[in-house]
């Protein structure tokens, strides 16, 4: 059975061209970029080339891009680094209820250390109101952190508006762009972004490598202490193959992004319409139009998410769910709850995220097997649905 991988928000397969670009940096070009001799210089040149590729996809200066171990580190660095660097100015940060745990849990950590955090609500589509950001800013605010697009429901936030509000108030603005970098256009200047998180494995790059954009002049303390790498911003010998891979992935994305967005959003809209048509009592989660081109997230009443996921896996289809039963903590997705979706409805949530290689045929197969799976699970349920 061929695997139909429809969980690209979780991770993407590393592009073969990316792997090919990385390979020499494990063996022949193994040098430490901090050294002066030939193999070291070669590695140094490679990471600087990667930095330029990442920067160019952000409209940033290469000197404003720093390599990290991934999205989680970049998020942690942004929050902790800004808050601790600005203790004299204030002690307050603003974020929102549907952030990735890499941001939310860091905000919670900072709260326990005595900082103040405002966690803004979202509307039923998972959208943050920029006016809420404006109202939440006070004289002690040092950071606003609102994600570019949500990884579960795909809602794309009005980051340009939020950036403008933060800039006017003289507050640093961070955005977690892990789900959008290489997928949607980003311009850190037009969007008035001061810090931005990137993860390699979400754009067909390798896992365990990422980057953080830090606008020149931003007051921030480093997260990692040690060697003077990354202009003293991030100590530790560079993950050269990983960084080269991220650079290559960014280079490919720069070419593919436009057509990919067009192709995927058509498949996405077809899939959403067909699920709503073929399965009763389904609701779409997230914004109807302001959403990631590859994201489909629905709640199917009367069927539990993990059971659907297992059933689809038996057909070779990989998807995910925000049901309590699929989470290690046995809590339903904090994103769905924050959007006002009751726990029992969140129970039936299903996320399908398309990728570069997704075909119409794969979507059609999902549409063929899903309705009978839902039917079987609903028949097994003791709850009688009203319709």
């Amino acid at each position, binding site marked *: 059975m061929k695997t139909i991988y429809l969980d690209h928000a979780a991770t993407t397969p590393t592009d073969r061209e990316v792997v090919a670009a990385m390979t020499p940096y494990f063996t022949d070009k193994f040098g430490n970029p901090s050294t002066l001799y030939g193999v070291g210089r070669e590695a140094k040149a490679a990471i600087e080339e990667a930095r330029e590729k990442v920067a160019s996809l952000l409209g940033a200066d290469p000197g404003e891009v720093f390599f990290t171990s991934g999205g989680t580190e970049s998020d942690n660095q942004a929050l902790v680094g800004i808050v601790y660097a600005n203790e004299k100015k204030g002690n307050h940060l603003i974020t929102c209820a549907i952030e990735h745990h890499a941001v939310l849990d860091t905000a919670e950590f900072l709260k326990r250390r005595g900082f103040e955090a405002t966690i803004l609500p979202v509307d039923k589509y998972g959208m943050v109101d920029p006016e809420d950001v404006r109202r939440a800013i006070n004289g002690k605010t040092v950071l606003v952190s609102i994600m570019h697009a949500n990884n579960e429901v795909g809602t794309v936030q009005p980051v340009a508006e939020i950036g403008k509000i933060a800039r006017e108030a003289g507050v640093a603005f961070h955005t977690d762009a892990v789900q959008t970098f290489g997928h949607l256009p980003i311009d850190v200047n037009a969007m008035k972004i001061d810090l931005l998180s990137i993860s390699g494995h979400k754009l067909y790059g390798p896992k365990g490598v990422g980057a953080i954009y830090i606008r020149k002049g931003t007051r921030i303390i480093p997260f990692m202490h040690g060697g003077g790498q990354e202009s003293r911003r991030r100590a530790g010998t560079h993950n050269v193959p990983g960084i080269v891979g991220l650079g290559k992935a960014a280079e490919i994305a720069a070419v593919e992004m436009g057509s990919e967005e067009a192709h995927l959003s058509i498949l996405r809209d077809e899939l959403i319409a067909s699920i709503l048509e073929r399965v009763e009592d389904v609701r779409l989660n997230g914004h109807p139009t302001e959403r990631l081109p590859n994201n489909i997230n629905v709640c199917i009443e*009367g*069927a*539990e998410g*993990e*059971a659907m996921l*297992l059933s689809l896996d*038996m057909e070779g289809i990989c998807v995910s769910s925000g*049901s*309590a*039963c*699929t989470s*290690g903590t*046995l809590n*339903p997705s904090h994103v769905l709850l924050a959007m006002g979706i009751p*726990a*029992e409805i969140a*129970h039936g949530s299903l996320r399908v995220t398309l990728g570069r290689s997704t075909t119409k045929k794969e979507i059609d197969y999902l549409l063929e097997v899903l309705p009978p799976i839902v039917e079987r*699970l609903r*028949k*097994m*349920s*003791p*709850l009688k649905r009203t319709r």
Partner: protein
Amino acid sequence: MYSEKVMEHFRNPRNVGEIENPDGVGEVGNPVCGDVMKITIRVNHDRIDDVKFQTLGCGAAIATSSMVTEMAMGKKLDEAMTISKQAVAEALDGLPPAKMHCSVLAADGLHAAIEDYRARQNRKEEQA
């Protein structure tokens, strides 16, 4: 993460459905993650003649429900009351730690159905 046995019961659950005019009904909900389960039994001479389940829940909830009905089928009520969540989990070659609470639901559902049957018997005797 699930054993082959769990997957087998998930794919082909035994005794799915609802007995008409049952002798006992057990309806339990799972406060942990929101699953619901209903077990209906038919009792004959203090023995479970038939048992069926309905479950809205995860793979483990469906598999443990299925397993508990298989274990209870044909058993004396006293014996069926001793079927524990551990026994259900063991019969399925184990469950991941985070899923042990699903087997609680299955065992509780069966016990609730038997208790319901006994409560009904007591009421009948009182009326007689």
